[in-house]
């Protein structure tokens, strides 16, 4: 439910970038959403579509989202990548106490194409 406020934050950054670069229009926006960010991708995209129509300088802008796979560390030190969000068990020692490796809960504006 906070996806809209996140996208509003994104648009504030985009507007600032336009000003800094003397550009008029946003063409492409690349955003990485960490697997533990707690963001509903569909809602994020929906909020982006709403905001894009609302701001003339963003009309037609394309959103490219990437979501890296979650990585977990076992108490034994082993780090494994998972296709699912659940940690599963350690591939090496079989332990089921696995912690998400830090960095996966951020949402990062990576790159912007503008003109």
């Amino acid at each position, binding site marked *: 439910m906070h996806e809209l406020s996140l996208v509003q*934050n*994104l648009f504030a950054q985009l507007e600032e970038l336009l000003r800094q670069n003397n550009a008029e229009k946003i063409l492409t926006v690349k955003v990485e959403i960490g697997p533990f*960010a707690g963001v509903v991708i569909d809602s994020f995209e929906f909020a982006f579509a709403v905001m894009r129509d609302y701001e003339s300088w963003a009309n037609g802008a394309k959103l490219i989202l990437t979501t890296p796979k979650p990585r977990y560390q076992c108490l034994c030190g082993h780090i494994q990548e998972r296709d699912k969000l659940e940690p599963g068990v350690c591939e090496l020692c079989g332990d089921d106490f*696995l912690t998400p490796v830090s960095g996966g*809960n951020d949402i990062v504006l990576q790159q912007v*194409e503008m003109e």
Partner: protein
Amino acid sequence: MCDVCGCGSHDHDHSHSHPHDQNHDHTHDHNHDHDHNHKSKTVDVETSLFATNNALADTNREDFREDGLVAINLISSPGSGKTTLLEHTIDALKGEINIGVIEGDIETERDAERIRAKGVPTIQLTTGGACHLDAAMVHKGYRRLCKEKGGGDIQLLFIENVGNLVCPASFDIGEDERVVLVSVPEGPDKPAKYPKAFSSSQTFVITKCDLLPYFDFKCEDALHDAKKINPHLRTMELCSTTGEGMDAWLSYLRELVKKFAVAE
């Protein structure tokens, strides 16, 4: 919609196809093709969407340090007993530790009125629909709280977040300690269903333990799931109204005040 965040079954690949569908249907896409004739510029940014919030959260933390207090962010579902725990905590620590409270709710002053009746400085933040408190709201709220009677002498600041296990977990509000609560009637599967609230917290409190005989709630199950997500999590089981388990909670608070609230 919000409940989907923590479930772990979201199909990212599937959802990726949506923006393309939208673009194809959208008339703006034609503009986009046209735009390619102009000179475009690509800028690498690499900034977090939480950057503004996190910077303000750090400012809040600095304010708390300067004022010599420790701030606790209470997160739980609606009705898990956050306000009741606060009422009993205030009674138990009266005359020993100066407590202040920032209440977060979507609507009404009700929680603030309950806490104010206990005689401690309290302000209510009504988000008017937003499902979480952010650093900016807490910043403004703390300014207001400082102006309340006794607001300048606070040693222990409770920030009771909006009742919601999903969104508050994503927003640093400048707290020193994050406490997540689950009450017995809610069921033991909350840690498994809402992992972020538990991975980002330091302490997990199970409340309303007097109801354990009447519910199919095994504390071990909830604690095991929570520890799986966050092995460093401190855990407590208590009942605010009967006082059971409150001693551990109170000594935890005393330790925190000792640790953080010394700087003058």
